[in-house]
């Protein structure tokens, strides 16, 4: 683990005053490798290392801790800050009802399942009247999938009308939300490539039409270096307000969390921890930090 590697790096160093650049360089190499192996994107790793270096070089070697432990603490602190600090950030529902929540992301990342999970959470925990609406007219049986999840969650789903465009469905969802006095409308969109201009324009139009309180980027925890491209493109097109990391019940280290947060500046709000509708957890930076650092 990184902790062991770093204490190993500093084994020769004994109470010499301040940590020098040379002392720290080897440690930084280990940190860089650990982060890349954990799938943190390269440009994000470089920024991270620069921050750690800044705080490590010249740091007084304390009597009570080994230099290796000191650097480990700095790495851990920078990681927690980079992941958004200690507190869990709630979903923003501060808007006139029906509050729209827009779910976006790459194909297969877990948007539809997460929409179902959010519906259940808002209905059960906050006693909200939730409408789930599928704007996915491209994937076979996508709308049926959301409808079935809505039934399982005990919340309403927008009736399926074949032949409508995603924008028309979005409009109808908001009208239904207003007319039938829903508290929250969750808009599930089709998976799309960040490099598909037409589809990014489509989701931009949906966002303009519905003015969501949250635009959540749903991301697979096992995403690799591409996390940066995807996060940047979605953020520039839409302005991402929150990130959901799915499939955290897998054994991926989850470095994409750091990459996505760094690029969008948006807080990671929730994590998916399984396929069942109750498998949705608040984001705990400590846990994710520990997992990325290994």
């Amino acid at each position: 683990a990184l902790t062991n590697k770093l204490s190993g790096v500093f084994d020769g160093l004994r109470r010499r005053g301040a940590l020098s650049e040379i002392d720290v360089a080897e440690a930084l190499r280990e940190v860089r490798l650990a982060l890349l192996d954990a799938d943190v994107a390269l440009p994000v790793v470089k920024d991270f290392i620069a921050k750690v270096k800044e705080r490590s070089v010249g740091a007084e070697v304390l009597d009570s801790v080994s230099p290796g432990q000191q650097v480990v603490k700095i790495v851990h602190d920078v990681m927690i800050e980079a992941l958004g600090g200690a507190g869990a950030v709630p979903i923003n529902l501060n808007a006139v009802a029906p509050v729209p929540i827009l779910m976006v992301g790459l194909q297969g990342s877990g948007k539809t399942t997460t929409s179902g999970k959010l519906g259940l959470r808002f209905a059960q925990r906050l006693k909200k009247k939730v409408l789930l609406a599928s704007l996915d007219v491209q994937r076979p049986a996508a709308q049926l999938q959301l409808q079935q999840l809505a039934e399982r969650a005990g919340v309403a789903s927008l009736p399926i009308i074949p032949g409508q465009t995603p924008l028309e469905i979005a409009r109808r969802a908001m009208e239904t939300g207003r007319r039938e006095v829903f508290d929250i409308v969750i808009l599930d969109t089709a998976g799309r490539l960040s490099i598909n201009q037409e589809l990014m324009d489509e989701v931009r139009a949906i966002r303009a039409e519905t003015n969501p309180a949250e635009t959540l980027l749903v991301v697979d925890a096992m995403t690799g270096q591409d996390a940066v491209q995807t996060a940047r493109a979605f953020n520039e097109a839409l302005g991402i307000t929150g990130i959901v990391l799915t499939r955290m019940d897998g054994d991926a280290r989850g470095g994409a969390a750091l990459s996505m947060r760094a690029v969008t500046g948006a807080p990671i709000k929730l994590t998916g921890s399984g396929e069942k509708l109750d498998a949705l957890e608040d984001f705990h930076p400590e846990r994710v930090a520990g997992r990325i650092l290994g």
Partner: protein
Amino acid sequence: VFVKRKLDDEALADLEDLLVAADLGTTVAARVVEEFRSSRFGKEVTDDEVKQALAAELAKILEPVAQPFVLDRSLKPHVVLMVGVNGTGKTTTIGKLAQQYREQGVRAIMVACDTFRAAAVEQLQVWGQRTGAPVISGPANTDPAGLAFDALTRAKAERADVLLIDTAGRLHNKSALMEELQKIIRVLKKQDETAPHSILLVLDATTGQNALNQVDVFKEMVNITGLIVTKLDGSARGGIVVALAEEFALPVHFVGVGEQAGDLRPFDPAEYARGLVG
């Protein structure tokens, strides 16, 4: 673009960064660049020359695993089991295969053994309508092993050329789900010891180093005979395939390049390597 510069330490470090950013992983990237260094260090080269040479190096690693999928029509049916973690594109890929088989005059039958996820059966049924391949399904939460067994019986009776078995997405670290997969195979073997003839692991090109764990565990638990890498039409370059080729040497039979029925191609190492290098 035609400016020549020295391929020195700094240039090599840049190349290593390029490969890491393409998901090759730190170990493989370092090794590839090291081989590159020994043959070209200090020479004056243009950026293009470097990229071409690097692509050639990567293509060499990938060539041994570029093995097209061979259907044995004498088996009647050739049983193909599609497996992988959630959301990688298994169901869509089965649909694309059914489309190819229709075009080739090969009789395919599909079976919806994802009996768990919402609308998984209906999703495969739409592909059945699109491609003309019959879809065998059962009631919700049916035992997938029993369904696979029945499908094999029917496929043999109808002398279908290929039986495409869709399974539920499953994370490799979930032992109960991996055991369920082993059970599907055991039950198939009760009817036909040689089945399934192919077990294809579907991987998402956006996946990072975890793909190595996925292949490792799936291969350990079932006899993976080949890989399919999907979503290569996206911005992810899929460099993990280079690491997989080095580590496991499993054939890469197809790449998925879109969501439509025709978006499945054989794995072309030269084209793939060029895409990695950018």
